[in-house]
């Protein structure tokens, strides 16, 4: 009876040690995986914001540059995770998210500014141009009538 008891104590101790050692690793792994998922979602959200700004006519070079930096850090985080470097993965994924801080508001501002620019361009190029064309056509018409009347008056005299 004493031998199984000893075995049970040793097994329990070993289990306790292994659980206490494995727990931080597991926690790190879970944190890293969560940070990577969060960084992916962040990038997708930022990508949508950049596309919206682009469709509003904005030049999004600044935005794509930030997205590329964030994407590169995320790729490195995934590589670190695959190599079981969970701390490195967590740090890189967090950095990736930091790069995109304030991205949505920047994209919104760029989109808004592009819309205003487009409205201004529309006013100048379309409304202004069509109005000026109408003025020229009316002026031509008026000049034509004026000429005709002047010609008729000079013929009558």
């Amino acid at each position, binding site marked *: 009876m004493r031998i199984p008891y000893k075995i049970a104590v040793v097994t329990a101790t070993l289990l306790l040690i292994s659980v206490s050692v494995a727990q931080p690793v597991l926690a790190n792994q879970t944190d890293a995986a969560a940070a990577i998922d969060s960084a992916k979602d962040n*990038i997708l959200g930022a*990508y949508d914001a*950049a*596309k919206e700004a*682009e*469709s509003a006519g904005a*030049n*999004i*070079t600044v935005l*794509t540059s930030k*997205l*590329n930096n964030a*994407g*590169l850090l*995320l*790729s*490195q985080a*995934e*590589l670190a995770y695959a190599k079981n470097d969970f701390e490195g993965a967590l740090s890189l994924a967090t950095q990736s998210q930091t790069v995109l801080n304030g991205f949505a508001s920047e994209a919104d501002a760029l989109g808004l500014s592009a819309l205003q620019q487009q409205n201004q361009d529309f006013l*100048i*190029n*379309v409304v*202004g*141009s*069509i109005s*000026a*064309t109408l003025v*020229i*056509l009316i*002026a*031509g018409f008026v*000049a*034509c009538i004026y*000429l*005709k009347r002047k*010609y008729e008056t000079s013929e009558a005299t």
Partner: protein
Amino acid sequence: MNLQGYKALLLVVTAVLALLVASPALERFLVYPQTEFFSAMWLLGPEGQAENLPSNLKSGASYNVYLGIENQLGSCAYYSVQVKFRNLTQSAPDPFNRTASSLPPLYSFTSFVADKETLTLTLTFSFDYTYILNPNSSLSKVTFDDLMFNGLPLNLRGYPTAWDAERNGFTGNLFFELWIYNDTTGGFQYHQRYTSLQLNMTV
């Protein structure tokens, strides 16, 4: 000049002026819509030109190339470039069936390119490999240890390459597949573009 002459002159002047003034507005309606949507990817040598691409490698030596990606899809694109390496017996991307290689990527990185823009990336790589020579050259082989890619060590163990009698060397392909994010499926799909480097591992 009679009245008709003046009238004609006035008409021509008015028409020309009206056309000139209306041109900014007309420009908006007369621009042809984009009909071809595509992406392109290419590799350039260390001088940024399509020459001197690395081919004969030395173990541990570092090489530079430029990878270019062009987006003509009509909106900003979210690409993923998968870096893969194969020996001659392993799966390659198929340009006819437009399928990707079945090999897992050694590394993949994302790239965002705005519409009608080009992104150029500098890629630096070096291979660490060992020659295992046999008097019978067909039994000789090269075994790889690591591929250093832009400062990141990528594991190449399990990628031996045998003697290639046709090319008279130990050859392998470092290739880059272009994948694109699909909003509908919420994942990346092969974009049917790849570019590769044919590499000969020298002693």
